[in-house]
């Protein structure tokens, strides 16, 4: 970006917005077809409720930010793995295990001072998710097994583990014995930090993690190595970088980020682990957030808030229209994934030339390969 005039810079920003905007418009158009076919509501009315429910008032935006927090974490989880060449479809399960471990510490250990209890709970969430992510890493490095199916299988196992714990060892011993844990101790909760609003300090932690994601990948040697291996494993290996180490570390961090997200969702929002805690596909929505944000820190923040708004607004939409299901938001999120990944279809002017799935890779590849060459 250095050495650009203001005009060039503005143009670059506008260009980077072109594909996300086209993807969003196309998704809303297809989504309106779904609304037309499954309800008696005018799609524009439904979208109106959705937008005002997500961004219309300060209170709505408050709810949007709360919904955005877990998505920021799962998006970072997908993004950091993707940057090192791993497709992490396991954020879903890592998120749940993080929530489970956080509940164990947040509910299970009573009467600790907050200064110890809260950090301990957060660490439990991170480490739980990270170790769960590491399982995939170990299986990949040791047996060469593809991470795609393994991460998905682990998602199902995580869901069953949560179901086991909330109906068994963690069941709240209180009639009528709902399948849920007792509530998280006051000393292990995250609370609001703006008077009058519900948005909690988890948002600040999410933003901190976005910053750390940027700092680690672009400002540290270890992060640099990870990106080189992600872009070109053989070049990385040639330059003396270990692909195995990068795989293990990235899945550890990816799992940890998702786990921290799950932990925060429990200790700041849901306050207890329930069998219905994960009815929203946090992990998979995070993939959409990461892709729409082009794996870019600033991009992830904006798309996280947008998706938070979609999800908060869709609940409002369901209530106000009565017959449009809130899962229409999931449909729209899925369509955004399709249209962002297939963004070349929006390339009209020039002759269709193949662009790599992530345009950032083009810029990065030249830069990193040069540096890798130097250090070799």
């Amino acid at each position, binding site marked *: 970006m250095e050495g650009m005039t203001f005009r060039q810079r503005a143009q670059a920003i506008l260009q980077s917005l072109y594909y996300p905007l086209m993807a969003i418009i196309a998704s809303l158009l297809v989504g309106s077809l*779904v609304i037309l076919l*499954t*309800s008696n509501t005018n799609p524009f009315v439904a979208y109106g409720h959705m937008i005002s429910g997500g961004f219309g008032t300060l209170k709505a935006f408050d709810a949007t930010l709360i919904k955005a927090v877990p998505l920021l974490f799962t998006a970072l989880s997908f993004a950091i793995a993707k940057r090192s060449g791993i*497709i992490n*479809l396991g954020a879903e399960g890592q998120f749940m295990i993080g929530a489970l471990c956080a509940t164990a510490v947040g509910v299970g250990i009573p009467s600790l001072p907050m200064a110890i209890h809260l950090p301990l709970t957060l660490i439990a969430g991170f480490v739980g998710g990270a170790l769960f992510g590491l399982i995939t890493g170990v*299986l990949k490095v*040791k*047996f*060469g*097994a*593809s991470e*795609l*199916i*393994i991460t*998905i*299988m*682990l998602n*199902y*196992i995580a869901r*069953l*583990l949560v*179901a*086991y714990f909330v*109906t*068994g060892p963690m069941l709240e011993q209180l009639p009528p014995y709902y399948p849920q844990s007792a509530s998280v101790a006051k000393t292990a909760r995250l609370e609001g930090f703006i008077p009058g609003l519900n948005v909690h300090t988890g948002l600040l932690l999410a933003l901190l993690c976005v910053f750390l994601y940027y700092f680690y990948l672009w400002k540290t040697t270890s992060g640099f190595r990870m990106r080189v291996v992600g872009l070109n494993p053989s070049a990385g290996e040639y330059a003396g970088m270990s692909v195995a180490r990068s795989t293990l570390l990235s899945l550890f961090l990816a799992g940890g980020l998702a786990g921290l997200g799950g932990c925060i969702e429990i200790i700041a929002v849901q306050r207890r682990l329930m069998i219905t805690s994960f009815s929203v*596909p946090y992990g*998979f*929505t995070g*993939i*959409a957030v990461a*892709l729409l944000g082009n794996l870019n820190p600033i991009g992830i923040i904006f798309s996280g808030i947008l998706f938070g708004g979609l999800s908060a607004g869709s609940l409002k939409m369901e209530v106000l229209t009565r*017959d449009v*299901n809130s*899962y*229409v*938001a*999931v*449909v729209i*999120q*899925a*369509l955004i*994934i*399709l249209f962002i*990944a*297939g*963004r*070349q*279809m929006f390339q009209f002017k020039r002759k269709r030339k*193949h662009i790599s*799935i992530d345009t950032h890779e083009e810029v990065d590849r030249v830069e990193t390969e040069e540096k890798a060459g130097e250090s070799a």
Partner: protein
Amino acid sequence: MNEIANFFQTAIRLATPTLIAGLGLVFSERAGIVNIGTEGLMLIGALTGVMGSLYTGNVWLGTLIAIAVTVLFAAVFAFFTVVVKADQTVIGTGLNLLASGLTITVNRAIFGANTSPPKIDTFRTTPIPLLSRIPLFGEMLFRHQIPIYIAFLLVPIAQFMMFRSNTGLIVRSVGENPKACDTVGIRVTGTRFLAILYSGVMAGFAGAFISMGQLSFFTEGMVAGGGFIALAAVVFGNYTPVGVMLASLVFGASNALMYRLQALATGFPSQLPLMIPYIITIVSLCFVSRKSNKPAGSAIPYIKE
């Protein structure tokens, strides 16, 4: 003895959706396509099969409708991955999320969220005359629903098509070396597109069998990883139809074992046996990955220069 026959009968029944979907996937995988979206396609097949059976009153017409709709969605996958050349894994993940959101939306719009499911026509058990009376084996092999017979009869046909026919040769070449195929005039894009559509047919059939053969209604997310397990069966079965069948039987047996354990052990946490199929799938993937028939062009979009 009856117990054993019963166990294998259940294993074969539970292996069938994996086998049907796997027999489709083995061709698209060989053509160089990794379709993570199979899970979503099966989910769509499961819902539209029930809807079709409800409206037409006939399970076979319902299955045809399921296949038709599923192929449409497979075409969406093919468009994005083969024509637009987008990343297959990402498009597959998008397709799964799309199917999950769409089936929930449509299911609630049609059947309502909490009403009991309507009665529909389902696949009935059709014992094969004479053969079903053979002791032990009769019960194990010849007292099944028709889609199960179809699935297993398809195995030798698929094996023949894959390794003894021109079609199979083209499919395998396109996955192994698309550039060379292009040079000698084999249409890479067309072949891959058709292979995806075929795997869509099979995914739709498999989904319809889950909702109308194993159960008689649709529940949200009912495929529960079946599509991914079918993908794993292709890898575990080393990319051959016969291998897919054997892998499906292993997964089917692990499912049967799960039900057996659940029924046997009361007071034992029911979630732990439910994990068995997923764990077996992970373990199976760790065993085979080194020396595999995985095509060289797997998951790489072919871009003509």
